[in-house]
């Protein structure tokens, strides 16, 4: 397979140019103040250009960049070597490379610059006293066959190259702490620490205000009653974040420290490390200590490094590392230093290894290493094994402390704005790409390259914005201990609440939605799940009940489990309650599994409340919990065992797409217009407008905008209107337009749901959302509506 490198040409040109220009600026700065940081930065620029150029197959650029890298490296080792001539030479090299890049941009052969190469080489030799390591940049090229010179160079002595660059290792790493991390700027609004700033203003509609659309279940067998929304990659919201509640919650959290109610044993549990939600891995290479099984035995191992391997030394080193993790290497041929230098005759390596892992363990440890063939593993005629084989100490143990990341607090409105704008950028980029398709053939590549780069940048920006929106769950779980204490006291229960994993982060929009459901589930567990201390003792349990709130991360989901060790739920009672309320036939109920029956508690009004005096029995509110969880794209599961307890499991997506809309009414329908596209709104008498042919024209600023009737555009009947009506002025592809609507309903922040088949086949819709009222509303893509 040969990669088509031409598609990267545009990106190569722009990025290499950037690096070379930066290199030039660094050089000028270097002359003024030659700090280590500047030299490191120069090295990186040259290095990046080298990597890119060799990937593109532009050897002359890559070789020159490599020589520059060598010279900068020499300067880095001893800054006294820097003088005006060196700076001049490097500047010339930077300019030459820029010219080379321009040449390839114009589809011309870049200059070989051999005189300059010699000068650079001589300079390095003069500085370091070392002969120049063979310049090795490109063994393989994709655009054209590799030059014989480069090809031959590629196989030349690995030892020299490795030695000359070995000093490079420490330097870039050590700059990490001094340069700090500007890239870290916009991280985490940390709303918990400043509740006031976490408020999202101007939002209407709380979760509780959702109107049920009257979709009542009919008596049908369990397969029909199976909960919907199991494929929950779509997301919606029923309302807006209740920022004030979150602020109050945070304040409450401060009042009651989590530990006040915890018994000694549980304090320990609470402070114990959070259980890792280990993502399922297909196959991770065995690298930890070998399993202690089998007897210590000595094995003779024969291996071969593939002859095609470009860096056999490194390959051999990797093998060495893997095997030393298994046990003790007692014999190694060639010796390690020879191996590292790549001096391995025909690629064969022989060794003897003392290990408890057995031959299967040896095979397993090398199974995942590329370019290595295990020729044989045989028991060696061994000297008695030492008592204990000491596996190599983990290198990770001596990792440096984390560089402290600088954080800046950002108002959440601003985060919302960022996301909104990025969304619009994405749409705009997609539109540009569409426009490119109708351009004449010869004009396309330039635009496509630009669009490709734009797309990459916008996607990158989107990732950053989404990251910045992530907020730890502690923002809402911090208030649970206090609430647990209050509920328990009122119900004369005793409870230990243990919360783990609260540092795990979720998109702020989802987090805001979860505050009430979590509180409700906690109340449910304590109120209805836990028995009184007397009952517990009678049931041979400790008098104190326990509620565990465990947050885990599993791939792109966050899982929240709320679990009590109380009396559990009775599926039979739930079924008969549902039957009694006419929600279920006796026959259907009989066929239901227990798990399905537990979810009956989420149907409005179903309750096992015989023994419950509280007005808010189990059942009331559970429907709201389930709805909220599903509205943010999550799922709710309930597990319970009689006498043992109940567990609620919430599986939630990490992020949602939030957009700001202007809601407008046309006839009886409501539509959303992306606010980023809205320039303004005005009122005018539609009949009194001037016309150009059939099109009415609305005066706006100094211009006249073409008027489109939204009812006609979307094909929705609306009664004709007389007198003044509102117009929305929007940006469209070919300038601004005015949309005649019947009413402006205001702005709302909503969660965008993608359109599923067949709706995605319609032009002019960019998504759909569900308003706080429960009403689905389409989000219009006005330019496409106009053009379709």
């Amino acid at each position, binding site marked *: 397979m040969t*990669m088509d490198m031409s598609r990267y040409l545009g990106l190569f040109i722009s990025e290499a140019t950037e690096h070379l220009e930066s290199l030039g600026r660094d050089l000028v700065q270097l002359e003024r103040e030659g700090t280590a940081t500047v030299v490191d930065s120069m090295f990186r620029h040259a290095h990046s250009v080298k990597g890119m150029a060799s*990937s593109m197959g532009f050897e002359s650029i890559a070789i020159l960049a490599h020589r520059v890298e060598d010279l900068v490296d020499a300067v880095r080792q001893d800054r006294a070597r820097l003088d005006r001539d060196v700076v001049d030479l490097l500047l010339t090299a930077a300019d030459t490379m820029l010219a080379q890049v321009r040449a390839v941009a114009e589809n011309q052969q870049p200059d070989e610059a051999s005189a300059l190469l010699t000068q650079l080489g001589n300079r390095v030799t003069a500085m370091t006293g070392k002969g120049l390591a063979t310049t090795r940049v490109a063994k393989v090229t994709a655009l054209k066959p590799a030059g014989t010179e480069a090809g031959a160079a590629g196989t030349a002595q690995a030892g020299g190259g490795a030695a000359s660059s070995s000093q490079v290792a420490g330097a870039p790493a050590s700059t990490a702490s001094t340069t700090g991390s500007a890239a870290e700027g916009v991280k985490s609004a940390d709303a918990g620490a400043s509740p006031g700033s976490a408020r999202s203003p101007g939002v209407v509609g709380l979760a509780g205000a959702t109107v049920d659309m009257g979709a009542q279940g009919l008596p049908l067998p369990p397969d029909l009653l199976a909960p919907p929304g199991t494929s929950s990659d779509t997301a919606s919201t029923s309302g807006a974040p209740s920022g004030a509640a979150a602020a109050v919650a945070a304040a409450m959290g401060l009042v009651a420290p989590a530990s006040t109610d915890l018994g000694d044993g549980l304090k320990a549990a609470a402070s114990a490390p959070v259980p890792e939600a280990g993502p399922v891995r297909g196959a991770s290479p065995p690298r930890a200590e070998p399993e202690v099984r089998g007897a210590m035995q000595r094995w003779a191992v024969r291996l071969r490094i593939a002859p095609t391997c470009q860096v056999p030394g490194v390959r051999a080193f990797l093998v060495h*590392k893997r095997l030393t993790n298994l046990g003790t290497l007692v014999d190694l041929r060639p010796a390690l230093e020879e191996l590292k230098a790549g001096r391995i005759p025909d690629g064969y390596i022989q060794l003897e290894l003392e290990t408890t892992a057995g031959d299967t363990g040896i095979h397993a440890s090398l199974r995942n290493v590329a370019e290595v063939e295990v020729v044989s593993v045989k028991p060696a005629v061994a000297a008695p094994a030492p008592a204990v084989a000491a596996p190599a100490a983990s290198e990770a143990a001596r990792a440096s402390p984390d560089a402290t990341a600088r954080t800046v607090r950002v108002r959440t409105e601003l985060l919302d704005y960022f996301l909104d704008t990025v969304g619009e950028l994405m749409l705009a980029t997609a539109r540009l790409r569409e426009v490119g398709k109708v351009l004449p053939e010869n004009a396309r590549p330039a635009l496509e390259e630009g669009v490709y780069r734009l797309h990459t940048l916008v996607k990158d920006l989107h990732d950053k914005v989404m990251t910045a929106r992530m907020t730890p769950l502690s923002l809402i779980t911090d208030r649970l201990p206090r609430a647990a204490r209050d509920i328990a006291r009122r119900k004369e229960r005793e409870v230990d609440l243990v919360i783990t994993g609260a540092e795990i982060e979720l998109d702020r929009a989802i987090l805001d939605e979860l505050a009430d459901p979590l509180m409700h589930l906690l109340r449910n567990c304590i109120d209805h799940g836990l028995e009184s201390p007397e009952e517990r003792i009678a049931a041979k349990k400790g008098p104190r009940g326990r509620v565990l709130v465990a947050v885990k991360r599993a791939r792109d989901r966050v899982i929240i489990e709320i679990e009590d060790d109380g009396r559990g739920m009775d599926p039979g009672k739930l079924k008969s309650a549902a039957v009694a309320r006419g929600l279920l036939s006796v026959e259907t109920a009989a066929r239901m599994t227990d798990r399905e029956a537990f979810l009956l508690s989420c149907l409005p009004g179903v309750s096992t409340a015989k023994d419950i005096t509280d007005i808010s029995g189990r059942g009331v509110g559970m429907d709201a919990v389930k709805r909220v969880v599903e509205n943010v794209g999550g799922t709710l599961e309930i597990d319970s065992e009689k006498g043992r307890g109940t567990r609620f499991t919430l599986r939630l997506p990490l992020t949602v797409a939030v957009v700001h809309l202007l809601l407008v009414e046309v006839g009886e329908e409501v539509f959303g217009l992306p606010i980023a596209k809205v320039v303004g709104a005005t009122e005018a008498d539609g009949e009194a407008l001037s016309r150009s042919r059939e099109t009415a024209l609305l005066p706006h600023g100094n211009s006249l905008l073409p008027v489109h009737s939204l009812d006609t555009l979307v094909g929705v009947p609306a009664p004709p209107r007389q007198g003044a009506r509102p117009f929305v002025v929007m940006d469209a592809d070919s300038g601004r337009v005015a949309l005649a609507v019947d009413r402006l309903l205001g702005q709302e922040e909503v969660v965008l749901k993608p359109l599923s088949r067949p709706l995605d086949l319609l032009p002019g819709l960019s998504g759909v959302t569900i308003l706080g009222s429960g009403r689905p509303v389409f989000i219009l893509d006005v330019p496409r509506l106009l053009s379709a």
Partner: protein
Amino acid sequence: MAKRVLVVDDAIFMRNMIKDIFASGGFEVVGEAANGLEAVEKYKELKPDLTTMDIVMPFKSGIEATREIIKADSSAVVIMCSALGQESLVMEAIEAGASDFIVKPFRAEDVLAVVKKVLGET
């Protein structure tokens, strides 16, 4: 299910190329990072099945980033992206816990072969 990949390189050019290679091999690139600091953070956030790591990067080198990632998750699979002449750096990265390495200039089939091998897919 497609394996999830985090691509770390300070050059967009390289990231795009690597991303395209992975896409052609049926992998899902779930994130990108442009320096070592970001790489560690992204890793913790995304917990990818595989991370490709450039060595020479601003703020924090790929080796340091690898060390921190392995410290946070000893089962992390980090593949170093190296160039000829960086042998000793790659060895340092292996000491730090890198699972394997690939050598620039990349050829799609070489990269995919190494990656599939490391993930135990061949």
